[in-house]
């Protein structure tokens, strides 16, 4: 497995610490993930796949909204698939993703689907994702009724290939927390 560090591409802040709940921007209503419950600066296993969460500073971006970025992958590791840790603002969201080798050849060209970010309390995801214990509101309070969740999405290809670049399409309602390349083993 190759865990991609998304730090260079962070462009959205969808998690807030308790001291900064009014600055949430997960949706038009200013909700946000509780930052204390996301493992920023460490590894998180989701359905058997490890993801790396970049370090989070209060008020600073913590995730990636796909806006046409091209992610250069150091060392072009060999992989047979890709896993995204993601969620959809306002319900299910989709974004085109293309994995390319060092010669610019396309390895995989697919549409990633992120389930909606909110799950009702009591209906937590199985190993397809995980939910936080509460949702932050901009009125400087939190509730445990609708819970913010992130989900694992995977795409596989047939032959092992060296992934040198990942291109993201455009959908600002798609939130990306981590990318892991899946090796042949």
């Amino acid at each position, binding site marked *: 497995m190759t865990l991609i560090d998304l730090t260079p591409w962070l462009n959205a802040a969808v998690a807030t610490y308790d001291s900064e709940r009014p600055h949430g921007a997960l949706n038009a209503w*200013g909700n946000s993930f509780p930052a204390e419950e996301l493992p920023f600066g460490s590894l998180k296993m989701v359905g058997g796949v490890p993801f790396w969460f970049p370090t989070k500073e209060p008020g600073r971006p913590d995730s990636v909204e796909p806006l046409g970025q091209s992610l250069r992958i150091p060392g072009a590791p060999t992989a047979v698939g890709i896993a995204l840790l993601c969620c959809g603002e306002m319900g299910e969201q989709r974004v085109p993703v293309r994995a390319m080798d060092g010669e610019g050849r396309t390895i995989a060209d697919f549409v990633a689907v992120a389930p909606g970010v909110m799950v009702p*309390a009591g209906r937590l995801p199985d190993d397809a994702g995980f939910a936080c214990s509460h949702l932050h509101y901009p*009125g400087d309070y939190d509730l445990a009724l609708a819970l913010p969740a992130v989900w694992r999405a995977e795409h596989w290809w047939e032959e092992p290939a060296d992934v040198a670049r990942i*291109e993201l399409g455009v959908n600002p309602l798609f939130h990306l927390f981590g990318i892991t390349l899946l090796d042949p083993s």
Partner: protein
Amino acid sequence: MVSLPPSPARRTTTLYSCAERIAAEQAPRAAAVLLGLRWSFGLPSSPLEEMTEYSLPLNPTPLPAALAQRGDLRIARYEGDDEVSLHDYLAAGGTAIVAVDVWHVPFRPAYRRVHTSRTVLVRRDRGDGRLLVLDPWGAPAESTVSPEELERARSSAVPFDAEREPLFSGNPVGRVWFTVEADPFCVDDAEDWVRARLGWLYGEMALFRSDEKGQYGIEALRTFRRWLEARLAGPLDGEESLAARRGASLLLRPELTSRIYLGVFLRNAAHLLGDAGLCGEVERYRLDLGHWQSALDALMKTVRTRRPEYDVFIRDQLARAWDNEERLLRTLSLYALD
């Protein structure tokens, strides 16, 4: 890179959602079809920000009148209790759709936290004078309130709160409420029934109309398109930009909702006629309503957070949504009435 296929259009206003629930009790399996017997686009001449979460698409022939004529679905709107008393209606065993400010609804998360207006279903509870309220918003919840609590919720001014409720605050509830009645769905000649309605739909798309309240038809949609694109090409920030984004969101939301139900009717119509060509066009129309949904969701996002890339996405999704409407116009032209 593969192009972005739309996520399904899925969100309905609480008024449509409540109306479907009541209608489904009286006309099982036909409620969504009966709510979709209308194509409409109304561009109000009044400020778009005066629209509410539960506004219906504007039309010189009000949507309830059209639905009553075409499918005998009867939606009545009341302001206050002068004509008919809400509490008398509930006491007689009726289920009403009531506009409320959820700030005053004790069992909801917004209680005494957020002024936000929408509609809920209300019926009499068993005997003790309390009222059973079903709120379809988000994760639906049901509980009871006292008549006094409901009155406070019905009478709220819903003060504007840009921070906590940038969309559905700022307009008083005005004690608005609705009733819905339907009969079990039954027609003698289904094909004739469907063809007549497809013809009416084409007519209201193609015919440009205007009055003191606004302008209507696909030409009004084209006008709105030019207006919105000009606003999105202008400065990102500032009062005018924010007002345009908020107002356009409030306009596009009920219009999308009406189209989601229209899609249900069209699908049934195509199958009833056995028209494979129409079936294909209708499925494409329903799928591409997702572009309208994506544009709306991103537009709503920009009420709080704005960046140029968002507006590029919104313009692209709107262009696809407008093309979808133009394509439907061409499809329905085959059913134009003489």
